[in-house]
């Protein structure tokens, strides 16, 4: 174990993936000599050469097409979309092509592609850089959407994503890149996809979250501990497909739920979790499900960002409401 930042864990995973399998390639805008705009691929081109870590022309759809085509030559591409707000330019490659190819070719073709991309607010970026668009991609059958919330998971989940024969959209939280540090196991290891993790044990209420929402939920849980309320925090880690069993386990354990997401409230992951709970576990509930999400506006310009984003105080207040419901 060593304490590492989230972005160092991401880079270490790619380093190990390149070392382990010669078929792994990394490409995207500025990922080569410059090491990516966040330095996630810093040093990898120098170490593995321009043949395996290389820049692309500035066109996201081209990057997606490149990845799909390279799979026919037995490569395992890790393609970077510089900011997930730019995903609209590559939606056909992701939703119209790579997600559909397994079923389209009657199961005869794998799509071992990782679409890495930074997302999330809190760093005053220009427009189109910070949006939480996971709900949009999570609705596409045929891709996995993975959103690690800590450095150890970032490394283990990214290595699992590279090993996966399905396309994986791997979303890395910009704010956590450098602000979050944590213990990261040494060497090559994989953390299973599609499995949620209880990251704070509790008995009174369940807070279900993912990605950048998890540290907010954890901060709330610590605050609630001080008030004598034992909150369990479930980190989904993969938002598509959902780990319905883990959701069921925590719901049946506590009977009270607050769902926390950084994305806007409308039609998102939170809504999906709430409807699964309503359909499958409603008789375990002792109170209506609470939800903390961003307002239903487009992602705000920088000056309003801090007011717009979800806060742990809001989570604490919502949990109190749910816990005190008779």
């Amino acid at each position, binding site marked *: 174990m060593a304490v590492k930042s989230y972005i160092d864990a991401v880079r270490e995973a790619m380093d190990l993936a390149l070392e382990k399998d010669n078929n792994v390639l990394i490409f995207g805008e500025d990922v080569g000599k410059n090491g990516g705009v966040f330095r996630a691929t810093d040093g990898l081109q120098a170490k593995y050469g321009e043949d395996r870590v290389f820049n692309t*022309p500035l066109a996201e759809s*081209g990057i997606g097409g490149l990845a799909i085509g390279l799979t*026919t030559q037995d490569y395992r591409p890790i393609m970077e979309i510089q900011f997930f707000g730019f995903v609209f330019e590559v939606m*056909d490659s992701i939703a*119209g092509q790579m997600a559909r190819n397994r079923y389209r070719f*009657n199961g005869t073709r794998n799509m071992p592609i990782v679409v890495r991309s930074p997302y999330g607010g809190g760093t005053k970026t220009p427009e189109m850089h910070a949006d939480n668009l996971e709900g949009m991609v999570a609705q596409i059958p045929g891709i996995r959407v993975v959103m690690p919330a800590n450095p150890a998971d970032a490394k283990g989940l990214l290595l699992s994503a590279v090993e996966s024969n399905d396309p994986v959209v791997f979303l890395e939280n910009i704010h956590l890149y450098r602000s979050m540090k944590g213990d990261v196991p040494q060497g090559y290891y994989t953390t299973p996809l599609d499995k949620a993790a209880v990251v704070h044990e509790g008995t009174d209420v369940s807070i279900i979250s993912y990605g950048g929402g998890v540290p907010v939920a954890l901060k709330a849980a610590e605050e609630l501990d001080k008030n004598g309320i034992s909150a369990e925090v479930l980190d989904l880690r993969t938002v598509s497909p959902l780990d319905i069993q883990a959701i069921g386990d925590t719901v049946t354990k506590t009977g009270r739920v607050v769902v926390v997401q950084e994305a806007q409230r409308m039609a998102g992951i939170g809504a999906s979790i709430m409807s699964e709970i309503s359909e499958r576990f409603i008789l375990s509930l002792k109170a209506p499900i609470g939800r903390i999400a961003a307002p239903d506006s487009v992602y705000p310009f920088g000056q309003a960002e801090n007011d717009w984003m979800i806060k742990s105080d809001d989570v604490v207040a919502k949990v109190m409401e749910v816990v005190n419901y008779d």
Partner: protein
Amino acid sequence: MRDVIVANKEILDFDNQMQVQDDVFPILHILDSDGEIVDSESLQRAQLTEEDFINIMKRMLLSRQLDIRSTKLAKQGRFGFFAPTAGQEASQMASSYAFKDDDWLMPGYRDIPQIVVKGWPIWKAILWSRGHALGNVFTTEEGKPVNSWMPQIIIGAQYVEAAGIALGMKKRQKDAVAYAYTGEGGSSQGDFYEGVNFAGAYKANAVFFIQNNGFAISTPRAMQTAATHLAAKGWAAGVPSIVVDGNDPIAVYLASKEARAWATSGKGPVLIETLTNRLEAHSTAGDDPLRYRTQADIDAAWKKEPLIRTRQYMTGQGIWDEDKEAAYITEVNALIDDQIKIADKVSKQKISDFIKNTLEVPSYAMAEQITKFESEGK
């Protein structure tokens, strides 16, 4: 000083620039519409043997018969979606004749005949048309892989994907190329440009075809772009780009063969615009060409279609005649009859199979859905 003044004036003369654009794309043609060779040197350069001519003729006839039969079957409700190919036989069959088994074909939805001649059994093409995923298993009857993607519906996607295949081939140091087809409508897509540009930037092994058949459903070619020739779009990406008489199988073959040689030499991709004509409807799904073009226009186009001139030339050379053609058409139709019977015997596509093939390992919710549909036999 004086030279700069003259040069600057020319740079700012936009009328002149338009004229220059017109002049730089002469059309490659070797066999004219009367079956006469207009350039015997290029004919020599193509190095087509008697056997090659017969093969190309047979492939074009196969394509025409597939078109006739598919259109008929669609009218009877025994086929699904089919995009007619009549008129484009030289553009499709003489181009694909220049490529090899190891090359990767990236077709659009009208490019079914190129996949068939690469070894994709006709019964699978019928299943594809009928909406069955078994059609998209690209292997020969003997189970050998056929290096083809499924026919793209999103008509720019095959271009960006071809760039990826081509880059992979270059990295693997293969003596092979990716060859992709779209139409003049497809060349308006952003992906068209991204694909050509990426392949150019990486000097990757790709040959791109624009089959300019005059119409994108109902929209005429003139509405797609102000560019005098669609091939000009390849120049913008720094890629050799040429215009070919798409109804002249010798010109189409020669251009394709030389483009392949260039692309495998490490110099990068080539773009070929074939000038051809869609003689029939956009698809069998209720399109009526007389809503957007005249009968006179269609009649004129039929006079220039590739089979007439090829038949004339080969008959003149003493390597083809009416009996040979009739015998081959009989043979092809018997084959198509057999293939329809095979396709008819395949059991219906199941939803449960689709769900099983959505992810490598189905999710919890998917597993529930598979169980439900399997219990209903769906």
